[in-house]
């Protein structure tokens, strides 16, 4: 069970192997190859499989995602199927009603696709470009920070804090997202900083 063992390759060879041994054992060696080639390949063998874990609860069940198209080759990849990873020591292939329906999460109609801005007093979101959204965010944050940054407290102690803008981090993002977030938030002097550990 090492990381390099492709489940897809395993399925392919297992399929051929079953045909080979069963028929070979009965002495029909000659037709073995012809028979094997007549067996339609398991559909998922044409998919790119990727190891992942269920993003919902902290049991962290192993899952395998199957997609059309290979990201590693620079292709677009579309999710086709998700199933439990039988090699995973915790869930051994099983998934609960949440994990079993994960495909519909990734492809939910209410997935967000574009940056949006809701102006003060408005009753709708309006689409903007990433540059517009990010420039606006940087402007808002910098102006607020410059106006409200506290370099020293009343006792003259250097405190270098900014408490008028806060940051709530999530609970399902990766450690790597978490650390980059930490770096950006703390370097700005933010203290109103929390995650979803409690709720």
């Amino acid at each position, binding site marked *: 069970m090492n990381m390099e063992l492709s489940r897809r390759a395993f399925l392919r060879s297992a399929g051929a192997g079953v045909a080979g041994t069963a028929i070979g054992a009965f002495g029909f060696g000659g037709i073995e190859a012809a028979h094997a080639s007549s067996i339609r390949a398991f559909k998922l063998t044409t998919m790119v499989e990727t190891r992942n874990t269920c993003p919902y609860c902290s049991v962290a069940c192993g899952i395998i995602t199957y997609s059309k198209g290979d990201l590693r080759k620079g292709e677009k990849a579309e999710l086709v199927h998700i199933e439990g990873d039988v090699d995973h020591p915790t869930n051994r292939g099983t998934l609960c009603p*949440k994990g079993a329906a994960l495909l519909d999460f990734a492809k939910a109609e209410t997935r967000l696709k574009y940056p949006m801005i809701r102006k003060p007093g408005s009753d709708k979101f309006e689409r903007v470009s990433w540059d517009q959204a990010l420039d606006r965010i940087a402007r808002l944050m910098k102006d607020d920070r410059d106006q409200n940054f506290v370099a020293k407290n009343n006792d003259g102690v250097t405190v270098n804090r900014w408490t008028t803008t806060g940051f709530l981090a999530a609970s399902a993002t990766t450690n790597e997202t978490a650390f980059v977030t930490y770096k950006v938030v703390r370097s700005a002097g933010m203290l109103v900083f929390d995650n979803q550990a409690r709720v």
Partner: protein
Amino acid sequence: MTNSWTDIQNTDLVVIMGGNAAEAHPCGFKWVTEAKANRGAKLIVVDPRFTRSASVADFYAPIRQGTDIAFLLGVIKYCIDNDKVQWDYVKAFTNASYLVKDGFSYSDGLFVGYDESKRDYNRSEWDYQIGPDGYALVDETLQNPRCVWNLLKQHVAQYTPEMVERICGTPKDKFLKVAQMISETSSPQKAMTSMYALGWTQHSKGSQNIRSMAMLQLILGNIGIRGGGMNALRGHSNIQGLTDVGLMSNLIPGYLTIPTEREVDFQTYMGSRGFKPLRPNQMSYWQNYGKFFVSFQKAMWGSAATKDNNWAFEYLPKLDVPAYDMLRAFELMHEGKMNGYVCQGFNPLQSMPNKAKLIRGLSKLKYLITMDPLETETSRFWEKHGEINDVDPKSIQTEVIQLPTTCFAEDEGALVNSGRWLQWHWPGATPPGEAKHDTWIMAQIHLRLKALYAKEGGAFPDPIANLHWPYKDQGEPHPVEIAKELNGYVLETVYDPADPTKVVLEKGKQVAGFGVLRDDGTTACGCWIYSGCYTEAGNMMARRDNTDRDNTGAHPNWAFSWPANRRILYNRASADLDGKAWDPSRKLIEWDGTRWSGYDVPDIAPTAKPREVGPFIMNPEGVSRLFTRGMMREGPFPVHYEPFEAPIANVIAPKIRGNPVARVFKNDMTQFGDATEFPYAATSYRLTEHFHFWTKHVWVNAVLQPEFFVEISEELAREKSIQPGGWVRVWSKRGSIKAKAVVTKRIRPLICDGKPVHVVGIPLHWGFTGAAKEGFGPNALTPFVGDANIETPEFKAFLVNIEPTTPPAVA
């Protein structure tokens, strides 16, 4: 978790209290089933509702929500009274023998030093007697009346089975049966595991709920062993990781802490983090704090952190309050003291208590930024949705910027499961539309801020300008690059302190573990407890070898478990005083005369001699604590306090409302309701078909559990003329909701202090976005108060009233 999901197969007794694993952690619960089927393990469930876990339990006992401490202290008393104590373990591995200062005392629900006006204690008397050699005084015979053991005995004396029944509503015979089953695991050959989750944390004394069980587990000798432990099941998939990496107001990655403004300089800061051993020979591992801290500062600010500027100590913001947790954040918002808020993958409008207050707070912001793969109620808090979100958009002046992010299938990196396993995953799909990785978004914000400061100048730009940003693509750090920073690397070639000619690690290499980290600026490490996750041997978190020698459940070559790939914390305590396994069939690590070795990475120096070095190496005592000194705000022992909204007065201290040291903001005190007006004890909970507010966007799950409901007993339904499936209005002092009533036998009235108490169950998962029907959820009702130590809101115990009603108006 001190142990892991797969370790639960080794247990003899599972206690599910403060959680509902069969419902909320279904694929982890299978290890309970394994233990039952293969070892004949028993399952006890103690819960106000007859839950899905209860339905497969060997024994179920009802309890009123918010009274777990009384129950558990009652079990501790039972074990002490019946001599069901693992004595060798308690004497050698806990602070039972430590002598406590004469000034320490307890009476009528309060410890010495209480100041009502501050809702806080002076905790100076809550400590050990220290001898002239600087070490704590002990009495190994446990005869001294001031030793922890005797104080504990005295402290739990009032929690008799009769008292437990009066407070908790658990019939005495059921309580005694549970106590008896638990007490049997005091045998060194028996293990019990505690599986708990938000049912214990979401109380104004949540930390002490957990502590009560931890004390019980220590008395029974169940910590550090296979099949034992304190197993926090946790909620979200990476909440362990987000906390490890310190994304909280007062944390630095690896459970280091942000300085307060009273720590006026680096020397003062380090001075209070010396962690001198309290007994001879003890490791007191936090003595290495400086190495972890300096390495962190180097990871943050690289060459800008120097010895001369105290490793850029002043780049860190200093706290003026204990924490800016999210309750405080919304309080500040509500007071108009905040201008901006960023919600990254978090939907506080649904997740936080007292929705009306949240809406008022968010409406006072100048700007709100949300980052999420899905629509959230928070990002649309200004949108009117009938009675469910009854706002006037025109009157809300907050600018909202909603940013689309990728989801699990489209990103790469590690998540930490409840068993502390860092498991790497790979992307398998192209993000929809223009959705972006969070790492990209955060980098873009940082780079723009940095550019603006370079151009315009402004308030103290140094920590932004000098933030170490070593990524190949500045605009999009790769997860592998970040993982390597978290692991740590050496900035200069490091030599062996014992032999300066010997190179430990060459400049630029990844460290193999936190043992290499230095406080001289030659090493950098983002999160010391993760050291070893990405070494010169590669990405340890991506390991997929699932072999498990002798089926211990350790799976040591699967992914990486922090710290140091250790699978069971405190595993030194699995062996007796001489280092032999308490139970040979449960062997974990043993002392072979020169070293510790076995199935797991020893949680002790490999050559630390038994009888010299204690197993709890993070504590300056070297042992675990039955008495926590001044480390917890409400006391060194747990005390039963009622929830802030309780159907009965506190039987043991009638004058005390809630937890006497829980922080309550001024206006929230007046927003607590009383039993006269709100007679029913409500609790929120989760369903197996849903995960928070995400799965209501998922078609399948929306079909499985389409509609919000509240759950009540047949008795209450009869009393209030509520029809099964009929509409009810439920209201608290803070708000009102409507739902369909599910009338079940799963909830039964309890008798507490002679009075019937009806429980109302309110599941969490609905809102006004997604594929499921619109629904209120419980948080229009819940109280704005948190745990006294870590501010987890009290979602699990509050008061409501209920009546039949008509369906709500829709948008």
